């Protein structure tokens, strides 16, 4: 598979998941939140104070609707790919014993 096809197929599939499934994600507490609620001895965790621009996978300017999640998710996809690209700097060029790609 050519690099271009890998990107198209992989990112296409990821975007499809973000667009078709993420807006309908369950709002129930996750397993850790559930365990904290059932067995926790302390108070609720303090409200997060991080610098995150899109808390809860929503763009604040777009409200709480499905589109907000889709846009936030697509921004996240781009950011993840960019970060992988920054972290991964292979020492070697593409392996010369591989067939040449068109």
């Amino acid at each position: 598979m050519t690099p271009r096809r890998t990107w198209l197929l992989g990112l296409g599939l990821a975007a499809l998941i973000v667009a078709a499934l993420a807006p309908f994600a369950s709002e129930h507490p996750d397993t850790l939140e559930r365990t904290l609620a059932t067995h926790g001895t302390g108070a609720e965790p303090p409200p997060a104070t991080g610098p995150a621009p899109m808390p809860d996978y929503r763009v604040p300017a777009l409200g709480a609707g499905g589109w907000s999640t889709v846009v936030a998710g697509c921004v996240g996809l781009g950011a993840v790919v960019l970060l992988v690209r920054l972290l991964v700097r292979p020492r070697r060029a593409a392996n010369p014993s591989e067939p040449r790609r068109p």
Partner: protein
Amino acid sequence: MHIPDGIMSPPVLAVLAGVSAAGLGYAVRRANRELDEATVPLLGTMAAFVFAAQMVNFPIAAGTSAHFVGSALVGITLGPWAGLVVMAAVLLIQCFLFQDGGLTALGANFFNMGILGVGLAWGVHRLATAWLGPRAHIPAAFFAAWLASVVPAIACAVELGISGVFPIVPAATAMGGLHAVCGIAEAFVTVVALDFLRKVRPGAVYAAAATSPAPRAVPCADPQSRPGPSPAESSGNAP
């Protein structure tokens, strides 16, 4: 299972942050040494897939939700080093852009879902396929993915128990029990994704490549196109 800020005790946070920083640094170096440029598209798209899949919380028992984590998928497909780099990228973006997982708990989250999850899944899958042969690939991946859901969940409960957030044994039992259920979904998604990858990109499975007579363990490798391995390389730990 992303631990938020403000609940884990500073000593536990510090230990896990230290272990995670060292682990990630080492993983980045090893990944860069093992990989070549042709693997970058696979790494990037795997990271995108894991990020997207982690957004989809699905209900499990009794008003509780969980999502696919992907530790086993990246570990089995990309190997431990590149797998850890991909998990780190996903966790960093989730934390810094979406407030999913606390900034101070980043090390703990990477330790659980990365070092433990990816490392365990990769190791179990590799041992099983080395012992039972390549036909064990899918069953081994299923079990490894289930384990990579349950063990990090119990570890998370133990870490928070040591932090005094809740009593260790009941919390670890609860987390382990919930993840024994959602681990089944994790395992299903993992084997479906592995099967899909095998169809669209033969040779993309790191561990399978390492245990088959084919070449050194580089995920992009097309098994037919590489020269045979030297004994040192066939161990999968070529320097």
